[in-house]
C-alpha cells in the first residue's frame, strides 16, 4: 500500500540540540492523524521536514510515495501546507492571493474561479475578497490560508495548529471540511494543542516528546490501554506532565 505520508528515520539537529531523533511513522489514505507534543517537542520541525522546508540530517519523508528531497516538485504537487502563523502577502487582496495560489498549483482558471467563489462563500469571506490581506485579522488570514490550501484538492493536507485564531463556527467548518476531504480518500495530518479537537477528529494520534515518538495509536486504543482515561490525561502521563495536578494543588495550599 502507498502511504499518504511515510516518514522513515527522520533526524534533525540544531547544533548540539537534537530536535527530531530518528522518527518513523506513516499516514494511510482516508486517515486524519493528530500530531501531539509539548512545546519544543519537535512537531513543527517534523512537519517542516515533511513539507521540504527543512532538509533532514538523516532519513526520508515521502508524500504519496514520492520522496520530498528526491522529487520535490512531484511531491509538493500532492500536498498543501498551512502553518500556525499564516504569513500571507499583506499587500495582495484576498482574491488575488487565492488566484495566485491556484495558479501556483496549476488549477485551471475556470475551476479556480468556481472553487474560490464556493470556498469564500463557505467561510463567509465573499464580501471581503477584494480587501488587502494586511487588513485581515489573524483568524481571517487563517481562513484565507486554508482556502488556499484546499484549492488544488490536494491528496494530503498538513496543518500546524489549524484552528488557532478561528471563531467556533469557522473551527467547526474546518473540522467538517477536513473530515469530508478524508472521506474522499485523502489524508490530513495536523498538529494541535487542543486535545478535544484531536480526540473528536482524529482516527489516530502520534505523540512526540524530546524529538522521539512515544505513542502512535488510534485514540480508542490509547484510551483502552490507559484505563479509559481522557486524551488529556494520557497526553500528560506520557509527556511527564501528570504532576501538574499536584503542583496546582500545592499552589492552592500555598495561597
Amino acid at each position, binding site marked *: 500500500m502507498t502511504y499518504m505520508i511515510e516518514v522513515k528515520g527522520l533526524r534533525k539537529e540544531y547544533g548540539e540540540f537534537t530536535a527530531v531523533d530518528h522518527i518513523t511513522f506513516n499516514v494511510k489514505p482516508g486517515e486524519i492523524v493528530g500530531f501531539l507534543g509539548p512545546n519544543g517537542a519537535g512537531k513543527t520541525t517534523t512537519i517542516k521536514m515533511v513539507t521540504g522546508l527543512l532538509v533532514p540530517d538523516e532519513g526520508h519523508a515521502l508524500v504519496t510515495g514520492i520522496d520530498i528531497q528526491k522529487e520535490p516538485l512531484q511531491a509538493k504537487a500532492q*500536498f498543501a501546507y498551512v502553518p500556525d*502563523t499564516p504569513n500571507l502577502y499583506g499587500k495582495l487582496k484576498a482574491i488575488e492571493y487565492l488566484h*495566485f495560489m491556484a495558479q501556483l498549483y496549476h488549477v485551471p482558471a475556470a475551476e479556480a*474561479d468556481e472553487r474560490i467563489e464556493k470556498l469564500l462563500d463557505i467561510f463567509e469571506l465573499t464580501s471581503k475578497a477584494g480587501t488587502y490581506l494586511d487588513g485581515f485579522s489573524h483568524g481571517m488570514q487563517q481562513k484565507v490560508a486554508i482556502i488556499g490550501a484546499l484549492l488544488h484538492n490536494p491528496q494530503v493536507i498538513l496543518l500546524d495548529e489549524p484552528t488557532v485564531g478561528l471563531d467556533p463556527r469557522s473551527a467547526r467548518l474546518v473540522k467538517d471540511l477536513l473530515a469530508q476531504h478524508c472521506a474522499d480518500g485523502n489524508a490530513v495530518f495536523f498538529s494541535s494543542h487542543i486535545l478535544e479537537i484531536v480526540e473528536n477528529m482524529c482516527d489516530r494520534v502520534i505523540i512526540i516528546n524530546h524529538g522521539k515518538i512515544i505513542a502512535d495509536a488510534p485514540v480508542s486504543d490509547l484510551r483502552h490501554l490507559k484505563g479509559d482515561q481522557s486524551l488529556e490525561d494520557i497526553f500528560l502521563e506520557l509527556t511527564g506532565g501528570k504532576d501538574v495536578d499536584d503542583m496546582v494543588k500545592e499552589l492552592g495550599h500555598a495561597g
Partner: protein
Amino acid sequence: MLADTSLLLRLYWTIDRRADKGTRRSSRLVMIVGLLILVALSWIVGSFAATLADGRFLFQVSAGILPGILFTAVLFGVVFVGFGQGLQALYLSDDLDKLWVAPIRPEAIMTAKLLSRLPSTVLLLFLGTIPALIAFGIGLDLGLLYYILGVLLILITPLFGISLGALIAIFLVRLLPARRLNEWVGAASIIIGVLLSLLLALPSFLGGNNQQVDPNVLATAEKFLNHLGDLPLPSMWVGRALVEFGRGQIAAAAFSALGTYLLITVGLFLVTIFVANRLFTAGWLRMQSAGTAVADIQEQPGVFGRHSLDFVLGFKDWLLRIRDPRLLATLFTSLILAGFVTFMLLRPQEDGSSLFALDLSVEGGVNFLSPGVFASGLIYLVGWMAFFNLALTSLSIERKAFYILKTAPLSASQLFRAKTLGVFIPYAVLATIGLVIMLVVLKLSLIWLPFGWMTLMIMGYGLFSFLVSLSFLYPNLDWEDPRRMRNRKAALPALLGAFGYSLITVFVAITTYFFALSEPGLAIPIVVMGLALLAGGTWFFVQWCTNRVEKAWPRIGAG
C-alpha cells in the same frame, strides 16, 4: 504613576540594551565609525558657522542667527523622528494590549512609551549638535554660560520633538489607520534621506574645479540667512539668547527667550501626557474595533490566473512593491539616484565639452566611443543603478511568506527565471525607450540601433540574472524596515561580479563595433559573431547562476 512609569522605562531600556548587545561586532564597528563621522561633520559645520559670523568668509551673518538655525533644524528633525517613534510606540507596539488590561494609569503608559526611545535620540542629537555648538563657541570665543546652556537646551529638545510628534500622530491616527501612516513615515524618511544627501552633494558636484563663486549667489545666501533670524520661532530666539549669554550680555530679552523655549517644551510634554492621553486612549480603543475597508468578490483578480506563472510571479512582486509605500520609496530612491547620475553625466561642461563628444579615435579614424556606443553604455549604467537594489532584494521581498513558494510545486530555476524577468522586463522597456530617445535627440544614424539594443538586452539579462541569483544566495526573509531588506553579505560579491561581467561584455561589444567599422564590407558577419559571442557567454553565465541558485535552494528559508 511615577512607580509604574519608572518600572516600564526600566523594562524598555533593558530590552534596548540587550538588543544592542546582540548586534554583531562588525555592525557595532560600522555604527561607531558612523557616529565618529557625524561628530566630525558636526564640528566642521560649527567651525564654518563661526567663520560666517566673524566675517572670515565671503559674507557675514549675524552670530545670533546661526545657533538658532541649528536649533530650528534640530527641532524639525526631532518632530519628524518623534512622530515616527510616537506612532510606533503608542499604536503599533506589541505590548499595548497587555498594558491596557493591567492596572496602570494611561498617563504612565504614555509617558513610558514616549520616553522609551529618549536615550538613543538624545545620544544622536548630542553627537550631532554639541560638537557644532562647541566649535562655534570656540570660534567666537564665547563664555562658559554659552556651553552650559547649549548642552541643557539640546538635552530638552527631544522632549519637544517627541511631544509634538506624538500629538500629530494622535490626531492623524483619528483620520488614517496607524499601519498605513507608519508605512508613509517610513517612505518619507527614505526619500528625505536621499534628497538631503543629494542636496548636500550637489554643490560640490556642480562646482567641480571652478573656484569662482557668483557674487549674486553670495548676496542672496547672505540675505536669506540673515532673514531667517526674523522668523518668529522660539528656536531662533533661543539661539540668539545663547550667543548673548556667551558674550556676557545678560539681558531681559535673552532670559525671556530661554524661558519661553523651556516653557513651550515642558508645557507641550505635560499637555501631551495629561490632556492628549484621552485622545490617545480613545484612538487606540477605536483602532481595536475598527474594521477595514471591504471590497467584495466583484473585484477582479487582475492578471492572476490569466497569464503565465512566470509573469504572475514577477507581477506579484511589482504589486507588493507598488502597494507598500516604503518599498515604493526604495524604488524611487534608486530611480532618483539613477536620474541624478544621468543628469551629472549629460550636463554640458563649462568649456562646452560633452562626454558625447569624446574622441577616442585610433588609426584609421575609427572612434571607439562613438556617441551611439556611449549612449548604450550610459543606458546600461543607469539601468544598473535603477534596478540594482530591486534585483538584490528579489527573494527577500517574499519575507515570511516565502514558505508559500517553497512548499509549492515550483522549481528553484523557475522561480529564479521569473524573478529575473520581473527585473529584466522593466529594464528592457526603459532601456529601449531611452535608447530610441537618445539616438533621436543626438540625431545619430539608426543603423546601429539593432546592435546597440541587442547588446543592451543581452548584457542586462546577464547582469540582472547574476544580481537576482545573489538574492537567492544571500536572502533576508526576516526584515521589518525595507532599508534593511538587503543582506549586507551580498554587497561585495554583487559589485565585483557585476563589474567583472560588465567589463568582459563591454569589451566584446566595443571590439565588435570597432572591427565592424574597420571592415565595413564584413560588418554584418562581424556584428552577428560579436552578438553570438556575447549571447553565448551570457548564456553560460546565466546557467552558472542558475546552478548556484539550485544548490542553495534547499537551505533557503530553513533558518
